Structures are given as structure tokens and as C-alpha cells.
């Protein structure tokens, strides 16, 4: 079967295999897997609200997935989307708190820009160090993650902290809040999803249609040939890290503008890390990443509903682990299903 079909089929088949394996675990704790999975589907897609919150969850995952995936395309392993997301959200908040006087048409894009610039700037540190001294980006971005984490928890408790009992920033100005697309009770479907999808399309165009994208990919595939072809490697490394960081920063910014409306300490909740698996499930293709993020978002959101029928949320982490594992070793999946086909 051809490559394109498989790249789409493997994640889907992996989901099936993972759900089958997990159903044994569910049986072991004395629950009914069918009830559990019905709850999973219901929780992810069963109602307007379910769909809205699935999309809310998907939005930042698309962007962190893009951040990591874009890095991979340019030959960089940006494990620091987590920290860039925090820095982006924090800077955007600091800006958006003070723009009450600005009309929304100005405040919204400017806030996004600030968040993206902060993410880009923070990621560029790693890019710059790699270009300048050859320092491995995995090490530097891991370190930068922790620094961002500690710094942000300082920021929300001291300079930006408000209120009694809560480590959080003040609410951002209402002109900087993203208008919701749909409101179901307290759940607001943020228009951030549009921004995220546009970002994916933008990255797709950048990679496939522009000469800059050509250079970034060339440097990612073969830095020697790229240099031979007149492409400046150091410049490309910094630029690629900056774009990757801007995407992660945008993920954090949209969380602030569209969901929480303020900066909360542990905002990222591992989404930067999720970006790695999403990027790879989506084969580092921006459009694939949208679907991979949607899959993750739906599983995560549906798993909340599973808790209501008494299945612990850890089950869904195990399901995710198996899916990702099978996507990694996709030949396992191909073998399982191709053999079946042959047998028929």
C-alpha cells in the first residue's frame, strides 16, 4: 500500500490496538470497557459542550505540535516548547493587562505578537547558543524550560500576583480577550482554534512554497549540502528556533487570551512535551499535526467523562502511551494488519 495512505492509517490502527489492550486493563479493575469507551466518545464528541471543550484542548496542542514539528523539519529537536509557551503567555499577559484603552482590533493582534515575540526570543537563546558554540539544543532547551518554570512561578506570586489565595495575574483587558465562537453554558469555544489552524496553514506554506522554507528544510536534511548551496546555517538555526518558539509562545498566548484570560502559574501542563508526540504522529506535516492534536485533544477530553463512569484518568494515559509507541514502531502495526490481510 502506498506511503501516504499508511501514514494516515497507522495512527488510526494504533488507536484501535491501544483501545483493545486498554480494555483488558479496564476489565481487570472490574469495569465494563464498552461503558468506558462509550463515555470516552460521549465526552469527546457527544454534545455541543463536549465538542467545544475538545476543540479548546486541541488548540494549544496544534501549536506546540507545530513548534516541535517545525523544529524537526529544520533539523532541530526543540524540547523546550514548554518553556517558550510559558514565556509567551507571561509576556502576552503583562502586555494585555495594560491595553484597556486600545480597541480590540489593535489589542488582539498586538497581544499575539508580543506573545510570539517572547516565545521566539526565548527559543532564540538556544538557537543562538547552538549556532555560536555548538551547544546541543536538547540540553539548552531543557535548562530553559526549568528556568521559565521557576521564573513564571515567581512572577505570578510577586510582581504580577493578585488576590488572596491565588497565584495568578490580574485579568487581561477585555479588548485583548479573544471573542468566543460559541458559548455553551460556561464553556467558551475560543476563536483561538482559527488562529491555530491558520498558523498550521502558514507553516505549511512557509515550508512548501517559499524559498526560506526550502532553505530551512535543506538545512534540516543535510546541513553540508545546504551550506554548499549558499545557505547560511547559523542564521537558519536561529531563525528556525525563533519560529518554533513563536509557535509555542502563541500556544501560551492563546490560552491566556481565549481560555483563562489571565496568566496562571503552571499554565503549560505538559503541552510542550505533548507537542513531541503530536509532531511525530502527524509526521511533522502541519496538516497531519492538526489531526494528531485533535486525536490527543479528543482522547484527553473524553477521558474526563470516563472518570464519571468510574474509570481512572490514568487509563487514558496508558492508551496514549500505547498509541504513541505503536506509531513509533509503525512496522509493528503494519505487520499485525498486513498479516491479517494475507491470512484472509
Amino acid at each position, binding site marked *: 500500500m502506498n506511503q501516504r495512505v499508511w501514514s494516515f492509517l497507522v495512527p488510526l490502527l494504533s488507536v484501535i490496538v491501544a483501545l483493545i489492550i486498554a480494555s483488558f486493563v479496564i476489565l481487570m479493575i472490574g469495569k465494563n470497557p464498552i461503558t468506558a469507551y462509550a463515555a470516552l466518545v460521549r465526552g469527546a464528541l457527544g454534545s455541543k459542550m463536549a465538542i467545544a*471543550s475538545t476543540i479548546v484542548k486541541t488548540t494549544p496542542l496544534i501549536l506546540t505540535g507545530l513548534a516541535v514539528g517545525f523544529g524537526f523539519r529544520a533539523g532541530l529537536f526543540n524540547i523546550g516548547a514548554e518553556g517558550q509557551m510559558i514565556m509567551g503567555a507571561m509576556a502576552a499577559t503583562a502586555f494585555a493587562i495594560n491595553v484597556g484603552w486600545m480597541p480590540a482590533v489593535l489589542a488582539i493582534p498586538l497581544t499575539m505578537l508580543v506573545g510570539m515575540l517572547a516565545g521566539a526570543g526565548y527559543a532564540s537563546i538556544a538557537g543562538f547558543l547552538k549556532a555560536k558554540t555548538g551547544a546541543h539544543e536538547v540540553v539548552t532547551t531543557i535548562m530553559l524550560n526549568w528556568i521559565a518554570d521557576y521564573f513564571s512561578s515567581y512572577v505570578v506570586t510577586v510582581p504580577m500576583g493578585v488576590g488572596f*489565595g491565588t*497565584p495568578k495575574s490580574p485579568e487581561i483587558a477585555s479588548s485583548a480577550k479573544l471573542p468566543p465562537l460559541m458559548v455553551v453554558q460556561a464553556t467558551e469555544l475560543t476563536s483561538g482554534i482559527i488562529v491555530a489552524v491558520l498558523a498550521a496553514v502558514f507553516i505549511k506554506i512557509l515550508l512548501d512554497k517559499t524559498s526560506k522554507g526550502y532553505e530551512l528544510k535543506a538545512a534540516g536534511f543535510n546541513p553540508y549540502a545546504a551550506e554548499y548551496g549558499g545557505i547560511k546555517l547559523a542564521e537558519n538555526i536561529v531563525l528556525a528556533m525563533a519560529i518554533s518558539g513563536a509557535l509555542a509562545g502563541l500556544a501560551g498566548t492563546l490560552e491566556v487570551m481565549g481560555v483563562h484570560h489571565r496568566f496562571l*502559574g503552571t499554565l503549560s501542563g505538559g503541552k510542550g512535551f505533548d507537542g513531541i508526540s503530536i509532531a511525530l504522529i502527524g509526521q511533522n506535516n502541519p496538516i497531519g499535526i492538526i489531526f494528531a492534536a485533535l486525536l490527543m485533544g479528543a482522547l*484527553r477530553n473524553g477521558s*474526563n467523562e470516563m472518570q*464519571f463512569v468510574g474509570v481512572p484518568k490514568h487509563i487514558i494515559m496508558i492508551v496514549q502511551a500505547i498509541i504513541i509507541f505503536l506509531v513509533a514502531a509503525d512496522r509493528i502495526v503494519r505487520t499485525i494488519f498486513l498479516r491479517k490481510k494475507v491470512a484472509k
Partner: protein
Amino acid sequence: MKRLLVLSLIVALSVFAMAFKVIMVTDVGGLGDKSFNDGTWEGIVRAAEEIGAEHKVIQSYEQADYIPNLTRAAQEADVVFAVGFMMTDALFKVAKQFPNVYFVGIDIVPPEGTSLPNVLCYIFKEEHAGFYAGYIAAAMTSTGKIGFVGGIPIPPVERFRYGYEAGAKIYSTLHKKKVDILRGYTNDFEDPKKGKDLTMAQYAQGADIVFLAAGACGNGGIEAAKEKMVALVGSDKLVDIIDYVVKNNKGFFAIGVDVDQDYMAPGVVLCSAMKGISMASYYGVKSAWDGTFEGGLKVLGVKEDGAGVSPMKYTKGMIPNRVIAELEYLTKLIKDGKLVIPDTEDALKAFQVPAISFPF
């Protein structure tokens, strides 16, 4: 398939509709924190068992889960608990949508100007609990140095510290004993090793009693105290520890937080600075059941049984009776409003120990 789904939904809903139901939604930490979540749950279970209500707990993955989880809970339950300061915004957004469901927020303060009749919020005067810890620590230290290990310096943690420092200051003023306080933060509530390392660092600098206001990091701190104590005493048996401490008048101790953690290392955990979380959630459920529920904010301190010190089951024998008696007296002063424990940094700086003379 679709029909099956609808059918199961109907069955589920009809079952749910019958009994009185309590659902607790936690933040990302979940049960097992030996703090808010466990404390709240304990009170819910106690009340629910008394009145025969259904009860369950839903854990959130991340902040974006608060609203969906609270909404889902409100669709099913009569009383919904939101536990943890992070859920403030979500709680009030959802509660507005469900005026017929009671909501209880633990460690949550209504945002300025918001007040809903169906939302009851509890917060605690941690500084009161911290006061006991500080007073006992100052009384018991043999090195003149006591430690404070905080998690992330969020306001509840800081209030514990204000009380702790004030308590130590009261003791040292009244008894003219010089007491230094070492302060540090793990900046984390999850990692016990970090708690242990920081506690050990404070022991290394001469502290012999450390107050652990750091969530699960505290477990590591307790283990640090145990390690030091066992090395000193040569045994981890309670009798040997008491014997040694009484005879030599020294030892290494930890002070627990939120709930009674004395049992975790008998004789080594000097006392625990407790919050009356389970009591709050117990009354939350009960009031909803018997119709006396009133919205608003309740601040629970010593007077309301919302803060206090553990019974010191294992360590009472080491602590001089005089100290216990003094604490009883001071408790009365706090209840009467004659002794105000500072609850902000500024109040702490300005805090002057009032002239207190014990009647004994």
C-alpha cells in the same frame, strides 16, 4: 450503536437522578495529597455516609479541564465541590449556569464583587495554625535555629509562614530566647526529594526543627528529620526517641502541615499545623442536605475550629507541660481577639508582641 449510546445515557441519567449526590472536582493534584484534596474528601465521605448520599471524585488533567469537569458534575450532582485556588474563575463561571446546584469552594475566595447565593467558599487562617508550629518550635529548639520549608510561595503557604514567624517571635519575646529562622522554598509541591534536600540543607546550617509547608515535598522533609533523628538516637523506636530527647534535651524534628501528619514518623514529627478542611466540607454537604446552605465566604480560624494544632499523640511527653499550658492560654487570647496573628508580610513586619502575662 447510536441507539445503544442514547439508551445507556438514559439509564445512566435515571439512576443518577434518584439519589442525593456529591461530586468533588480536584485540580491537577488529585487525591492522595494528604492536604486539601484528601481533607475535603474525608469530610465529604463522612457527611455522605451519614446521610446516605452518593459521592465521587473527578480529577482534572490541566486548567482547561476545570470548566468541563465542573459543568459535567453540576449536571449530575446536587452538591459540587471545587477544591483548590486555581479553580476560582471556573467555579464562578459554572455556578452561574446552575443556580439550582450547590457549589462549595475550598481554598477559594470569590473574585471581587462576585457573590452567588449557591456558592459557599471556605478559606482558612493558616497563620493561626502556623502560630502553633512557630511557638512550639521556638520552645523546643536547642540550637536557637528553626527552619521553614515552603513549596511555591503562594498566599496560603505564606500565611503559614507569617504565623510561624509570629509564633516564634512571641515565644522568644516572652521567654527571652533568641531564635533565628531559616527560610527556603522548594518551588514545587510534588517532589519529595526536593523537600528532603532543602530540609537537610537547613539542618546542615544548624536548624533542628523544620516546618514543612510544601505539600508532598514535606514527606521528604519528614524523612530527613527521621534520618537525622535516627542517626542521633541510634534507633527509630518511639520510646528510645522520647527517652533520648527528654534526657539530652535535643533532637531533630519536622512539623507537619494541613492534616495530622504526626503518624508518618512517630516522635519525629513534633506536631502538625492543621487546617479544618474536612470539617468545612462536612458542613458544606450537611447544610445542602438539610437546606441551611448559605452562599458567601467563610474564613475559618482557631475560633471556628478551622485551624489548629494536631493532638501531638506521640510527642506530648517531650513537650514541657508549661508550653502546652501557655498555648491553651494564647489560644484563648486569639479567640477573644486579644492576640492578632499577622496574615500579610506588612503585618508581620509591624507585628509587636503584646504584653502577655500568663496567669500561672
